[in-house]
């Protein structure tokens, strides 16, 4: 819609199919129908492919898109089914019995050294810094820039309430948000946007971003349309410019270089906070993860192939990387085979759509799930895949004040907390049904999963038995 001076007129060019007009119409008078004046049917040259060709022929440019990969690849999560307790082990009722979901972000020692004397038991093992989370669900990395000020503050408030961490994305931290430091997992990406001493010192954990599931091998991309005065100050870049962070970190061309950055960050924060590394799930992710752990990462984040983004070349978003499910299984198994699994918390993000995916990710071997798109949906996002245009009519993925003022911070924060509570409750329900009263006993418990899909080779890689196969 557009206001032309005396009346509101439709502006079809700017329609992103966000459906806000229909959702918010006070009379419920708007219906949206798909335009049937489409391309004639063709199974190989689908409408999508023909549109891409048409657009590229018009502009000569790289196709951009946002949100996550929307191609109909099979979701492996949907091919996994869960176990439940019957007879020999009682199910636990989460309404009546404690079921614990607390967990820690940070490295664990190999073992603890105790000495027992006549009247004391002494523990002589130092611990790496760890952040206690009340739920194994963290909010992933979304920058101020890709999302609005209101959206980011709503996430921070929701995390304060639910006792978890939120990523800052690679956009630095607005000084207004320093008060939320205790729940912030700040990102250090290749552009180093907004990274200064207060940013590093105020937060609960630091995450070096090497790659992102939506665009493995690519850097960050904030279109200039979204670089407003506020973003320019927070990121320390000129207003109105595209914020394109380099594909690699130009001080990291090898695993040794990564180790140097990990320790530079540990030194600069006086070993007070855990330092992690995030990579996209790619073919050799298990070996890469092992290198990251050996380089000193206290937590590692594997970002899967359906992960979201504020802007990415469509070809990368849709075609690069591997499914998160396989990546979790491969990384967890590799770290165990090398005897270093405890030395880093394994976070998994990018593909976790709802609580069923969360519980399956944990059972496959992730300690913590990271989510982004679901919390955006909680705030109103319709997954229209137009974040890169900066026209988000829900006031989430935009910096346009006309739209951002639409996002009520209190309502959005409440809705995000509700979502996290709901997922946590569903996780407790599942644990209880399996006779497990603490999430520690659920992590990596692949015995409680079965595969029910078309390709048994996938089950093998996941280390999961086929449905119908018993224990043992």
């Amino acid at each position: 819609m557009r206001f032309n001076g005396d009346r509101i007129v439709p502006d079809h060019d700017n329609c992103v199919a966000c459906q806000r007009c229909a959702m918010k119409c006070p009379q419920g008078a708007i219906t949206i129908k798909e335009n049937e004046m489409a391309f004639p049917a063709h199974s190989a040259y689908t409408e999508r492919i023909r549109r891409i060709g048409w657009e590229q022929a018009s502009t000569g440019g790289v196709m951009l898109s946002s949100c996550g990969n929307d191609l109909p690849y099979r979701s492996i999560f949907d091919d996994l089914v869960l176990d439940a307790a019957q007879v020999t082990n009682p199910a636990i009722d989460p309404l009546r019995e404690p079921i614990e979901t607390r967990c820690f972000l940070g490295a664990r020692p190999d073992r603890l050294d105790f000495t027992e004397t006549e009247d004391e038991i002494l523990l002589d093992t130092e611990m790496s810094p760890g952040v206690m989370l009340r739920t194994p669900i963290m909010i992933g990395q979304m920058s101020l820039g890709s999302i609005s000020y209101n959206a980011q503050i709503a996430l921070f408030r929701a995390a304060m309430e639910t006792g978890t961490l939120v990523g800052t994305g690679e956009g630095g931290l607005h000084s207004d948000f320093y008060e939320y430091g205790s729940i912030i997992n700040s990102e250090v990406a290749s552009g180093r946007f907004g990274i200064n001493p207060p940013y590093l010192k105020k937060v609960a954990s630091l995450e070096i971003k090497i790659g992102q599931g939506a665009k493995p091998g690519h850097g960050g991309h904030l279109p200039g349309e979204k670089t407003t005065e506020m973003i320019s100050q927070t990121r320390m870049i000129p207003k109105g410019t595209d914020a394109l962070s380099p594909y690699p970190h130009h001080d990291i061309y090898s695993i040794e270089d990564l180790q140097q950055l990990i320790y530079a960050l540990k030194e600069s924060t006086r070993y007070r906070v855990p330092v992690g590394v995030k990579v996209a799930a790619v073919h050799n992710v298990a070996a890469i993860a092992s290198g990251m752990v050996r380089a000193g990462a206290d937590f590692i984040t594997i970002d899967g192939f359906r992960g979201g983004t504020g802007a990415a070349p469509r070809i990368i978003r849709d075609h690069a990387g591997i499914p998160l499910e396989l990546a979790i299984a491969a990384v967890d198994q590799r770290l165990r085979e090398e005897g270093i699994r405890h030395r880093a918390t394994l976070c998994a993000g990018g593909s976790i759509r709802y609580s069923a995916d969360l519980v399956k990710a944990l059972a496959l071997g992730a300690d913590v799930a990271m989510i982004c798109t679901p919390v955006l949906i909680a705030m109103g996002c319709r997954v229209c895949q137009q974040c890169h245009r900066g026209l988000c009519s829900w006031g989430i993925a935009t910096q346009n004040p006309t739209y951002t003022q639409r996002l009520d911070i209190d309502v959005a924060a409440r809705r995000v907390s509700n979502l996290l509570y709901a997922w946590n409750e569903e996780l407790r329900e599942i644990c209880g049904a399996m006779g497990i009263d603490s999430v520690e006993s659920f992590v990596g418990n692949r015995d409680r999963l079965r595969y029910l899909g078309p390709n048994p080779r996938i089950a093998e890689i996941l280390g999961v038995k086929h449905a119908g196969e018993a224990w043992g």
Partner: protein
Amino acid sequence: MSACGIAGLINIDGKRENGRKVVDMITTMLERENGLGAGYACYGLFPEMQEHYCLQLLLDDRQSKEAVEDLLVERVEVHKDEEVFTRKVKGMRGPYPLIWRFFLEVPRKRIDENPDLEGEDDYIVDMVMEINSRIPGAFCMSSGKDMAVFKGNGWSHDIAEFYDLERYSGNMWLSHSRFPTNTPGWWGGAHPFNILDWSLCHNGEITSYGTNKRYVEMWGYKCTMLTDSEVVTYLWDLLCRRHGLPPIVASMAVAPRYYDDIGRLADEQREVAIRLRRTYANAMINGPFSILVGKARPVPTLIALTDRKKLRPMIGGISGDEGTVFAASEECAIRRVERDGEIWAPVAGNPLIARMGDGIVWDGLKDQSQYKRMRVIA
């Protein structure tokens, strides 16, 4: 292993108790078994061979015995070997395995030539894992010093008769009768499970099996036996022997206090509890369990522990003369052999620990923080 019976006793003065007593205890709880497996562990069994490991094996046939012998000749010094006495029992179904024991020592050079090994115990563990996973038809029932396990597929009274347990005496006995549900009844799958001189009798079902299994595998154990009890045995070996946790601390690792309870502890204790829980997150045993754990070194010790919701029973007792400590699934098992004395029910997730020479180290009734002052010095 849903409803199983467990019973154990330890003579804290170091006197030897005849096998009859523990057989009386376990066979009293007939309702807890269904004839698909039972077993016994006896400690202080070979005083004249105390310094030698005793490998007691179930063998399908002569070929498997020969394969084991070939391996032993290559790896260790066998001092003596003999067939374990058994007899046919009416009602027990064959085929019976061949049961053999070997007393052996690890040659010093074997340890020296392998820099990864911390000591001869690790060498034995590796060898047992190899026998169980590589030699068809061979299964090592026990591998400790001055102890042995006697188990098989049958009722507890049949197994006792099959091995003629009255011919043996020891300072400590553990016993188990099975009502298997998840895994087939087979000779090797009966309890007690053993590695070195750790033995374990288990009543329950470990819902964290997958997590625990993958945790112990990371430390080099091979789970070959299709059962959750095996993994719990390895956990005790890992935590107590290799990591050196005192038994009460190991109990707190496998059956940790709830975070809400940890939050109420005094600062020093809370820090210990949180570090323990964080480090040993994957060693936590979930689901219903009641276990008896026996170890021989440095002195025979009996540990009885239930899960932190106490979904399986456990009763402790001490004889009227205060010489023998008991632990069993049901009071009747203790009363059958000891009319006098005291009986109590240890609290959920709180261990009963009795040690030869010291008696009851911990009765499992008070909060563990009252055992000794626990604090962090690092």
